[in-house]
């Protein structure tokens, strides 16, 4: 077990380094001179040159990369140009928004998606199965930003139930927080519920076909125990495997959804940075995103190893 964890950590090192180099290279290919972007197009050439020196853009690319890695090692992810703030503190400031949204969305997704998948598998080929599968397919086919706008028109403008945009921290009360987040969270959840229901259904069908389920039924174990104790637990194993994908969908989706609902989260920060060509901001945010993602995936794998002994020894 310990060896497995150590191996997994070691594997992550090259991934993180390659990722950092990729992000660096990508952002240095950006068209347009960032120094000009900061100084403004009417700035004097000397001013532009000074900014270029400040940012170290006049030095060779490899030297810039080395310097950048040095700063990263000290936990310095750079300073945003438009915000005049360190990228790390900008991200930390916006973290509660994105975390709240993700948390709420997951709370909706996981029970709903798994339950729908299990029900569809148990009543295989029934009208319920068809209904769940068709809805799941529609769920993964709707563009989230479009659904978000429709939802705002209906629930915020027409019915006036929820605020159309903006974020209220939970410190100002549970209801204001919830009413600001419920629409984006549900919109975000729809896609993942569809995805999770499809995965759960096929995993459950696989398990239901296994001999030990027949054995359980044959020896007279009641149906509820057979399903909840024997079938459901084994269904969860393949479902845990896709939690990395769910997370990726969640974060990716939140970038778009935060934009529609004007939620000041990390996704919005990245889009803001890209549109303003604030490349230290984009670079830093993407790095923090990527690093956290690698870390979370390691965590998922470790949980997986604990849950399923076959993975540990395989």
């Amino acid at each position, binding site marked *: 077990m310990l060896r497995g964890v150590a191996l997994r950590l070691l*594997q992550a090192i090259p991934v993180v380094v390659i990722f950092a180099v990729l992000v660096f290279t990508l952002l240095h290919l950006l068209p347009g001179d960032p120094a000009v972007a900061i100084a403004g197009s009417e700035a004097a050439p000397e001013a532009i040159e000074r900014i270029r020196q400040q940012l170290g853009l006049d030095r060779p690319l490899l030297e810039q990369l080395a310097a950048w890695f040095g700063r990263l090692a000290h936990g310095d992810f750079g300073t945003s140009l438009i915000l005049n703030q360190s990228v790390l503190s900008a991200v930390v400031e916006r973290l509660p928004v994105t975390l709240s949204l993700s948390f709420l969305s997951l709370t909706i997704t996981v029970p709903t998606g798994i339950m729908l998948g299990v029900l569809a598998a148990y009543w295989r080929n029934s009208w319920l199965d068809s209904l769940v599968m068709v809805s799941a397919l529609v769920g993964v086919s709707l563009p989230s930003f479009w659904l978000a706008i429709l939802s705002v028109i209906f629930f915020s403008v027409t019915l006036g139930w929820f605020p159309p945009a903006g974020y209220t921290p939970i410190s100002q009360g549970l209801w204001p927080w919830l009413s600001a987040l419920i629409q984006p969270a549900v919109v975000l959840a729809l896609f993942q519920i569809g995805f999770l229901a499809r995965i759960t259904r096929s995993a459950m069908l696989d398990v239901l076909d296994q001999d030990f389920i027949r054995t359980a039924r044959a020896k007279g174990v009641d149906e509820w125990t057979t399903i909840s104790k024997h079938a459901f637990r084994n269904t969860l194993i393949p479902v845990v495997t896709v939690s990395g994908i769910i997370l990726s969908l969640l974060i990716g989706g939140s970038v778009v959804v935060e934009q529609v609902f004007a939620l000041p989260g990390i996704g919005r920060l990245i889009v803001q940075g890209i549109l303003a060509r604030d490349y230290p901001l984009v670079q830093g945010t993407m790095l923090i995103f990527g690093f956290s993602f690698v870390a979370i995936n390691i965590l998922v794998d470790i949980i997986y190893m604990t849950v399923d002994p076959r993975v540990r020894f395989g």
Partner: protein
Amino acid sequence: MDAAPELQLQSKQRFRLLRKLARHRSFRIGFSIILVMVVAAILAPAITQYDPVAMRIRLRFRPPQAAFPFGTDQFGRDIFTRVIYGARLSLWIGLSTALLSGLTGAMLGVLSAQYRKFDALLMRLMDALMALPAILLAIGLTAVLGPFTSSVIIALSVAYIPRTARIVRASALVTRELEFIEAARVAGASNFRIMRRHLLPNAMGPLLVQSTFVFAYAILAEAALSFLGVGPSPPTPTWGNIIAEGRDHAVDAWWIMLFPGVAISLATLGMNLLGDGLRDTLDPRLKVET
């Protein structure tokens, strides 16, 4: 060995697969949706008399009516026309992304199954690319490459290559251990021949299925990119652009943003149905979802 019977068998098998596909309900529905859209996209100039970008302010904000079935936008452009021309772009981006990421992913997957040293390096690179959600990677790449159709295609392909490469690699790793590969090797087949004649054809099923789903993701992702303002720049009629432009008028002129959204959903749904059908038919092991 005589080649003729083998060929005959193959074409017979192929025919049986096609018949099975044609009987598959969700494949049929998906295929019909996509077919109608492709035909409409190709025949766009014949279907509608209007220009997708020319502005006629006099005709702005017309609700849906006989002359403008989907209404007009704030510049008096016919939404129906823009949606149909948008289909051209969206389907083109979806198809190109599926092909480009499919070809590259297949090549990388097979190579990495065959050459172990290359594998270690390549898979770490793929892991690094997957450290960011696909849509985020695509946003970043499109921003770097500029607001053009080709940028979107390249960005989305790069975002989806790692997943495709992994699927092909997994399939090739299994094939590689089978006896007939050993037989081929004994018979003197080169690495290249083994990859081209054996590893790749045997990965074709999963590859095709994956590419269909990439097509569907690409349509959704392109719309999101356009909507966020990093896709092909307006007035290019992409479905995402039309929604972004109609957003400010969503309450009074709901038709501007409603119809392109329906088009995106239908196209994605169609490709997903098609992919489900292909998976059930080509990969019986995965036949779990009806």
